[in-house]
């Protein structure tokens, strides 16, 4: 290739030879230029594809990495028994009941103390309360209900700042745009600066992102419930699709006679692998929900639908793994008197197992990211509570991402990206596991 690129030293040759060679040479030049162009197109195509990948990842990481930290406002709260339990009843039921606003009063009191607000200045108090998440009072209430011994003490409590304050601290709401277009007003900025000076405002690791459920307030929203829902679904998929897939493939690969019926199954499996996933969602809706009356939004139904979508992948991988086991193994087994069934289950299947597991993990990873069929069976519910069984309404990681993606607030965009990072991390872990398994157990025959 290198000598082709450099032109021939035609000038040193004399007379007729020059003309002859240069004729060929002109053609060669053109042809080699075309060759270089063609090669360049190829390189360009590969580069473009990799650039797309890089753009995708960097855009999501750039939008999402900030969500792993969250702005907290820590204040000393006076757990005043006269406010919390005016009638002296400190049972959790009494704390969860009664006038809900008394906890707002507690917060207001500690805010007034922290920001040194004049108790009669109501406007300043409300400006200060604007900074705190609207979920603060319920948070305080359940905190006290869980541990009634707090009553009567003074304790430092970390409150969530609102999503807008959080965005401001992280710099995604900038102070230099006109106040009228800004979600954080000048009066708030003054208060924020005051809090920062006192050390009450800080960025902490966002544990709520991993433990909380759905919420309309971005600062209180998390993927914890969705993760549990996805976990339940993956368990259902694993329990159903691994045995079904392996059993089906063993029959097709080892026992099935070559006839029309098995041909039909074969063509069928290849086509099922290419059916749009949303069609599986329609099937799930019509059969599992409308016909069998299974509960809507339950992770059991999600798992069933995802089992059907993953089954072709697992069958194709398992059959490839079984095919890779050399016939000599089978012949040896049969030769020493084992039945066909014994040969398959005692010798062929164990040897094919690494391949089967790799295929299963890749199938599961695919199922974990599947979204469209879950929307069909109603797994985009607003779920705050952790599901305790697969029959409870739940949501899944990808559907949680879908629901957040359509929220306009900057704080939600950040969380969506963070949820995507979590999802991609899971996928990466699963695929790496598959690769490690393959490397560790791969046998060349």
């Amino acid at each position: 290739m290198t000598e082709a690129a450099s032109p021939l030293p035609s000038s040193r040759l004399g007379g007729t030879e020059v003309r002859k060679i240069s004729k060929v040479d002109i053609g060669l030049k053109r042809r080699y230029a075309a060759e270089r162009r063609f090669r360049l197109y190829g390189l360009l195509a590969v580069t473009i594809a990799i650039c797309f990948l890089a753009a995708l990842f960097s855009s999501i990481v750039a939008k999402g990495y900030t969500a792993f930290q969250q702005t907290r406002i820590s204040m000393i709260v006076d757990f005043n028994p006269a406010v919390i339990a005016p009638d002296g009843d400190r049972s959790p039921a009494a704390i969860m009941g009664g006038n809900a606003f008394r906890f707002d009063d507690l917060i207001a009191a500690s805010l007034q103390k922290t920001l040194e607000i004049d108790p009669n200045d109501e406007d300043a108090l409300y400006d200060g309360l604007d900074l705190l998440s609207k979920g603060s009072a319920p948070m305080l209430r359940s905190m006290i209900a869980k541990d009634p011994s707090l009553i009567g003490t003074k304790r430092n409590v970390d409150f969530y700042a609102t999503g807008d304050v959080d965005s401001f601290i992280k710099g995604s709401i900038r102070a230099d745009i006109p106040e009228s277009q800004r979600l954080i007003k000048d009066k708030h900025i003054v208060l924020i600066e005051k809090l920062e000076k006192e050390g009450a405002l800080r960025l902490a690791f966002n544990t709520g992102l991993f433990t909380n459920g759905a919420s309309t307030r971005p600062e209180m929203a998390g993927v914890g419930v969705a993760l549990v829902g996805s976990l339940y679904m993956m368990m259902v998929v694993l329990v159903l699709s691994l045995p079904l897939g392996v059993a089906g493939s063993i029959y097709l690969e080892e026992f099935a006679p070559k006839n029309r019926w098995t041909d039909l199954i074969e063509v069928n499996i290849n086509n099922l692998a290419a059916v749009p996933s949303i069609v599986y969602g329609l099937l799930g809706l019509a059969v599992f929900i409308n016909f069998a009356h299974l509960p809507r939004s339950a992770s059991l139904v999600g798992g069933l639908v995802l089992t059907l979508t993953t089954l072709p992948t697992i069958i194709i991988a398992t059959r490839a793994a079984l095919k890779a086991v050399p016939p000599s193994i089978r012949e040896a087994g049969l030769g020493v008197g084992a039945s066909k069934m014994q040969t398959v289950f005692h010798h062929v299947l164990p040897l094919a197992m690494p391949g089967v597991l790799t295929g299963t993990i890749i199938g599961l990873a695919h199922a974990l990211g599947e979204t469209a069929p879950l929307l069909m069976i109603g797994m985009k519910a607003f779920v705050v509570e952790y599901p305790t069984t697969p029959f409870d309404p739940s949501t899944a990681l990808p559907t949680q991402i879908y629901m957040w993606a359509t929220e306009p607030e900057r704080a939600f965009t950040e969380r969506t990206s963070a949820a995507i990072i979590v999802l991609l991390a899971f996928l990466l872990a699963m695929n790496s596991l598959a690769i490690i398994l393959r490397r560790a157990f791969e046998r060349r025959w």
Partner: protein
Amino acid sequence: MGPLWLLALIAGLSFFGFVLGRWKSVVLSGKGRGTLAARPGYYGAYVLIWTAMPALLILVALSIAKPFLVDHTVRANLPEQVLSNASQLSLEISGVQQVAAGLKLATPEELENIRIGVVAARSVFARHGLPLGADVKPYQLIAAGALNLVSDGLDTAVDAAVVAALAFGLIFAFVRVKPRLRARNLVENTVLALLIAASSVAILTTVGIVLSLLFQALQFFSMVSPANFYLGTVWDPRFAAAGSTESGQFGFLPLFWGTLYISFFAMVVAVPVGLFSAVYMAEYATSRVRSIAKPLIEILAGIPTIVYGFFALTTVGPLIRDYIAMPLGLGTSGNNVLTAGLVMGIMIIPYVSSLSDDIITAVPRSLRDGSLALGATRSETMRQVILPAALPGVVGAVLLAVSRAIGETMIVVLAAGVAARASLNPFEEMTTITVKIVNQLTGDLEFTSPQTLVAFALGITLFVITLGLNVLALTIVRKYREQYE
């Protein structure tokens, strides 16, 4: 007993049967009554199968039959004028089911009071934590009573049948365990039957898809004629208001146009990039470059489509709107055909490239070597020898990619928009078949209204289109492979 208890009982007794059968075979052979015809474990499994199988079959069959029998009983006990009102029938039946659930909660004393009419059933149920929407009508009480009677009776029958089957199977198989019994044959035949059943799940899925979609779609086509659906140019389904007879317009063509237009842009991105990368990987790249670049490109196929959708919505869409559409004055929306097509194209690159790579490397080496030996450069060999030879396979790969683009959902749901219109301007919002399936099926579902059922008509159309493309593509690829084998 609930089904879970029954299952636990079956599992426990089967295990017991296994131990018993194995033990008997060992003991008998130890007493010198002849050598065993199979290993002891098979005798255990023999008893296990005889214990579990009949009981499980009975349990499954009766559990499937129960809802139909109960439904039949309820209908038989409802008065004529209720039955004749077909549209309200399902509501009435669920009402009866609620009353039946309430009757189970009430104490015998309260039941007596309800029967003689001293207290209203509704207030009794409310006291037990079951608020009803309306007062209980007398015929509902009668039907609910019959329902409870039949359903309790069935439950008892199931329990009795399962226990009888368990006992019979266990004893029968245990008695038959003798050293000369060929236990392995039965065990292996049962396993084979299970394997066959597992392999036909794939067929069942296809049948399920076709039947469920077809059934609902036919219901839709009884309300909206297929001609109006497939040839309609206006998509305006209206809202499914309760009791409204207004059906709106369900024109398929604008959705189809949006789908095709977006897929076209996806192909414009994916085919050149995918094909050229495949060529580069197969022909020019050193093995080191290939070992890095190939997995990187394949990562694109492993990323969930919701991630692409979000990328399109938050990054690509605004970029195209601010830097291309707005300056040209062609559109003001971040949701547009170009965004969806571009991002979908990125997603499809690896499908095109890895399939084309396989196909290019499958072209016999002799063709390539022959061309190179004649003095052709590598690019000339590729363009004039290998690609023409691989063309059918590449076409198959592209068709598979098109089918994937048509069925893709999440990218278009987030990035293409919801307005059904047929226009040539790629900076406008358009919508696709899949988007409308999602739109029509979120929120309250009413399986009698065309607004919900249209999703199934769209679904079966989508299924037929993609299936046709897949079958065509697979046939082409298979023919092509045979050509060189």
